[in-house]
């Protein structure tokens, strides 16, 4: 009989039978190892959580009181003979790849990752392994990012132009990850940074975790509109098109996402400006990351799995598509409940989850694109 693989794909998530734990499970389990705090990876309802130190406060903010153990990158945790260690994924602050070793066999689960150093998340570190489970959100060759310094030049220039024209500047990005990355790269000589409550809550959680972020000011009902116009507003996708956003008008509205690389996707969002800024690896990033693992086989989860798998096999990798996970293929973008602007208040009607954050607010970049404005 063939040896059972160390990890298997089940309807609850990626499962390690030997260690009796799951990685990023989407149904309640006893023991969960979490790659990062985005909602499509860190679900509520598990008995025990293991994550990186820097995910602690955000997880507690998002999931409420949970039984959470946190570790440093490189630190090991043993579960029934399986050695677990976390390595930086460079996706958002506190994001990790999960490395498992059992009897000399090494598996790595990438979670979400990017290869470019964003200056705020611990940079991605390739980990040698036999089996690599990789995301491929942008696994199409049309997605090729420019260095972020160019993108932030564009953003800062756009902000200056808006100041010059006397219109407010609203920049949209996900509340965990993108918002902080933007915050740390804005030219604060232009003005102050104002934040939507959802982003500020996340900022506060990160600050409690000891992360040093540039100063921000939470927008409240009392914040004078005229002041806000002299600065920049950071807003989550769910705020687009809402009365909350409209009250800042006239404004120019920019959207930061990898999907902005395609004109059609940008036009669909009706954003004034689309900035191609992603927390996921681009095409070359994915291939170089997979190559650097030296893996025997690579399993591709969410993104353009079918296409990317076929290509990897053609260029000599042993790649397999994993359908069961995160909806598979390019589907993820179209999750209906993640429509930004559709539901600002908390809406948990479809689940019995206790959530501190509105569902669909921050499913990570891949999931939230489907929304319409």
């Amino acid at each position, binding site marked *: 009989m063939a040896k059972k693989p160390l990890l298997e794909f089940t309807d609850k998530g990626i499962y390690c039978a030997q260690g009796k734990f799951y990685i990023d499970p989407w149904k309640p389990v006893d023991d969960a190892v979490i790659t990062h705090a985005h909602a499509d990876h860190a679900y509520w309802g598990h008995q025990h959580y293991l994550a990186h130190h820097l995910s602690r406060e955000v997880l507690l903010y998002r999931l409420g009181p949970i039984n959470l153990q946190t570790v440093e990158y490189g630190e090991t945790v043993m579960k029934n003979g399986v050695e677990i260690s976390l390595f930086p994924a460079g996706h958002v602050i506190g994001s990790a790849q999960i490395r498992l070793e059992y009897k000399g066999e090494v598996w790595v689960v990438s979670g979400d990752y990017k290869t470019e150093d964003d200056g705020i998340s611990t940079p991605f570190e390739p980990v040698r392994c036999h089996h690599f489970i990789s995301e491929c959100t942008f696994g199409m060759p049309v997605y090729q990012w420019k260095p972020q310094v160019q993108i932030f030049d564009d953003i800062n220039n756009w902000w200056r132009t808006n100041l010059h024209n006397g219109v407010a500047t609203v920049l949209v990005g996900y509340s965990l990850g993108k918002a902080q990355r933007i915050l740390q790269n804005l030219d604060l000589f232009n003005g102050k940074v104002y934040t939507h409550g959802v982003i500020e809550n996340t900022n506060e959680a990160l600050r409690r975790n000891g992360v040093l972020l540039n100063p921000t000011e939470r927008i409240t009902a009392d914040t004078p509109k005229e002041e806000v116009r002299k600065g920049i507003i950071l807003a989550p996708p769910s705020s687009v098109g809402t009365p909350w956003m409209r009250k800042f008008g006239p404004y120019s509205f920019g959207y930061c996402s990898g999907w902005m690389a395609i004109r*059609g996707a940008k036009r669909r969002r009706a954003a004034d400006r689309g900035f191609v800024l992603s927390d996921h690896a681009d095409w070359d990033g994915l291939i170089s990351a997979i190559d650097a693992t030296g893996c025997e086989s690579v399993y591709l989860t969410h993104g353009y799995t079918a296409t990317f798998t076929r290509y990897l096999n053609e260029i000599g990798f042993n790649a397999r598509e994993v359908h069961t996970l995160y909806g598979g293929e390019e589907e993820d973008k179209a999750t209906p409940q993640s429509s930004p602007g559709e539901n600002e208040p908390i809406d948990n009607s479809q689940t019995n989850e206790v959530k501190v954050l509105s569902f669909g607010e921050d499913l990570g970049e891949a999931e939230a694109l489907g*929304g319409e404005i």
Partner: protein
Amino acid sequence: MKAFAQLFLSLDETNKTNEKVKVLKDYFINVPDTDKMHMLALFTGRKPKRIINSTQIRTWAVEASNIPPWLFEESYHVVGDLAETMALLMPRNENSSNKTLTEWIAELNTLGDKTEEERKLWLLDSWAMLDGQERFVFNKLLTGSFRVGVSQNLVIKALADISNLDAATLTHRIMGNWVPETYRYEQLIQEQGAADDISRPYPFFLAYPIQETSEKQKSAEEIQGALGDAGQWQAEWKWDGIRAQLIKREGKIFIWSRGEDLATEKFPELHPFLNALPDGTVLDGEILSFQNGLPMPFNVLQTRIGRKNLSKKILEESPVAVIAYDCLEFKGEDIRTKTQSERREILERLQADTPYPETFRLSALINFITWDELAEIRGQSRAMIAEGIMLKRKSATYQVGRRRGDWWKWKIDPLSVDAVMIYAQKGHGRRADLYTDYTFAVWDGDKLVPFAKAYSGLTDAEINKVDYFIKRNTLDKFGPVRTVKPELVFEIGFEGINKSTRHKSGIALRFPRILRWRHDKPKEEADTLDSLRALLGE
């Protein structure tokens, strides 16, 4: 090309009309006149000649991108635009070209005499010379598809602002078949349009729809409230043919379709009557197929539109005539500022004098006293092979483009059936990478038979939901087409239905579109092929 690439980028970077006009003006002010005319040609749908065929362009783009052809194709489906796909896939470079748009197009035009190998070299060199955005617009030139999200009206507005001519005059002057190589900017903006081309049509006046839904019809009172007394209006049937402008000047005849295609040779039956018209006459009307004095459904005409050669058989099966409803020029004089009634009189006189009343017909006026009466008459539209009724204010001038106020179309409700979605394909442009093009089926016994494709009618939010469903309920894939689990039911509206030998279902629909998503209907309750056949009226 830098300026042209920047123009595209700037237009993409704003959704605001005023800013777009400003961007267009900046462009016009900053580029040489010849570039202005080339840009104008491109933005008004005058496609550049395709010198290199698109298969070759694709093949060489695949080579330049260094990826397998299948991956190129899949990328194209994700991007939904060939020019953009090629630009995204080629290796980045920091080069940039100083050649003007005019120079690029001139070079492109010299390729006609070159060998395939020379063309390829030129293309690969050109790509290597350009940065990403320049490549994108360059590819647009090559592939000849120039939909840029800017209406002709905006371009005209910008041009009017910088030339001090009014928009209607400019709109008229850019009608017809000019080419930027010979039509000069000075000619376009001169005070008097003296050197005008004799083939040049006038801009069409288009009617605004009287909006109503199948649930909510406009009552006679509402019409009265919106349009005033019935006595101020003339009513005609709304014909479903090809809108055309027919010109006789200096002994020459020209037939223009609304898409500004010169279609003179497509309708030889109309030549005798046109040649018999006095010089300096321009008519507006609808070209339809006729048989025994009665108009035939649009699909009969459709069979001959696409043909290069009109065989004797086609001319016999689908002979055309014009139903004229307006006269724009008479005795060489532009009479568009005369009233509708005055122009009608002139038109009637012209028609009375024609020796060819079979091919030069008049759109009959409908007699009515009250709106109530007209609403009733409108109910007979389908029997008249008409789409509804046209209302024209008797005092109206002939205006430019689609405007509210003096011309209204009051269409009848579409026919409709409930159908099941069975295939889906990704869309293009702003619908790229989303499943937006659907094929629908009705029941024939226990089988679902496809009968219509539709692309429009859903809101963006609904499209997202349908897309989500399709991606999770795919049964099979054939190239870009997915077979979808039959489950979702939609109400499909259409303007007409006809027998067809080309379709599996044996019927062909005119203008099918999605009226609404029937969340309330299980697939078993969708309509049947028999119910469609019943609509054929046989």
